[in-house]
């Protein structure tokens, strides 16, 4: 089977860092790694709203979301020297960290079992998410790409990424076998990647 992504040429990268080139943020993270407060300030301005957005989507509780956001940003400061340019953009590095932390926080607070039960009564929050990502060009693009997915792909992606559910929880919610959900998640992300013009 063809592994998507493995045949993409390497040098031809489009930035996932919004309108400004990736190099810009890379230069900044390099300065942050050397203890440059002004660079950290600039990085904060660029990325903190996204970090807070994704963290709050998963955690919901405002105070906890703020706490985790603070932890993530401090972690960026602390480990800036760890950033490896060859492995992706600064935005991806920071957002991966943010999402992981948010999910870990939620899962450490609720026992998995409880969460499985609670999750079964939840509504699929598609409208809410698409509402949240409605304005601005960037958001419009994400929204358009989300709409290009099949229903199961889109719902799997939204429940997993925006709400922090595991694939088995998503399977339960959607009434679809776990194997199907795993596949749909991968397909959904690949389609999003291609639609959003990210190549790696």
């Amino acid at each position: 089977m063809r592994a998507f992504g493995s045949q993409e040429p390497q040098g031809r990268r489009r930035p996932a860092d919004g309108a400004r080139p990736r190099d810009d943020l890379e230069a900044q993270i390099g300065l942050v790694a050397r203890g440059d407060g002004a660079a950290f300030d600039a990085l904060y301005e660029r990325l903190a709203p996204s970090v807070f957005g994704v963290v709050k989507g998963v955690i919901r509780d405002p105070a906890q979301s703020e706490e985790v956001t603070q932890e993530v940003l401090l972690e960026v400061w602390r480990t800036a020297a760890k950033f490896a340019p060859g492995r992706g953009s600064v935005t991806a590095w920071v957002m991966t960290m943010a999402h992981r932390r948010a999910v870990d926080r939620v899962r450490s607070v609720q026992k998995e079992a409880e969460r499985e039960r609670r999750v079964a009564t939840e509504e699929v929050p598609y409208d809410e998410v698409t509402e949240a990502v409605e304005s601005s060009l960037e958001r419009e693009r994400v929204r358009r790409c989300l709409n290009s997915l099949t229903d199961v792909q889109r719902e799997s992606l939204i429940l997993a990424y925006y709400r922090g559910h595991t694939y088995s929880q998503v399977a339960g919610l959607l009434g679809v076998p776990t194997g199907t959900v795993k596949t749909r998640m991968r397909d959904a992300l690949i389609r999003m990647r291609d639609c959003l013009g990210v190549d790696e």
Partner: protein
Amino acid sequence: MKLISRRTDAHTLIGAYAMDAITARDRERFERHLAGCEECAREIAGLREATAMLGAATARPLPAGLKERVMTAAEVTRQQPPAEEQAARTGTRAAPRDITGTWFRSLAWPGRLTLAAGTAAAAAVLAIAVVFGVTNGNMRQQLNQAQASSRQIAVVLTAQDAHMMTRAMPNGGTVRIVVSKTRHALVFTAKGLRPLPASQEYELWLTGPAGTRSIGMLPAGSDGVIGPVVVSGVRAGDHLALTDEPARGTARPTTPMMLDVAL
């Protein structure tokens, strides 16, 4: 073949992994697979560019005061040098250099007390600068040079509910405490405490509904300044107390409290 089917099985988790939609156990399993799969690492990098854009689309206005807290915390947080990269990736945090050993006269004592003294003096200077509000150029200079600080101190000082109390000691000297109830911790510093005879030392206690717990002996200060000391395990209703005790320490206070602060 078993090997192949297991590989394929792990590989199907790639999308779920990229979205953290897996349990800790699956994550571990997948990361073992990932370690030997160059192609997967590339695919994940690409998928994460996509999830990053999904995330960026939810950007929202930040709560008031967050930036200030982040910047203050950064100022007192030591950065990892690139050399530590490997250890960090495998999840081994650079442990704060506790010098608990020199603090405790007996190993039987509960290890609650940590002197924030990574690269000792500078960290102490830094926290004292923060706690006592001293920010003269000389101190800043030392701080920058040493780039030292304590994450634990930062966590307390930058907690949203951090609350500072100052108490004058009856025999002279001042004690400052920054306590965060949500962090169940406090930072203690003292200035100008009356020196004790060689056979005696100051001992710090937490006392409250959970009983009286010895925190440890205060270290000798430098230039009359003691600490900063991070005390964790603070519970609701606790008081912080100070007594002078035989230098080996005691399990129960044997002299009247010289300080008793409701936290």
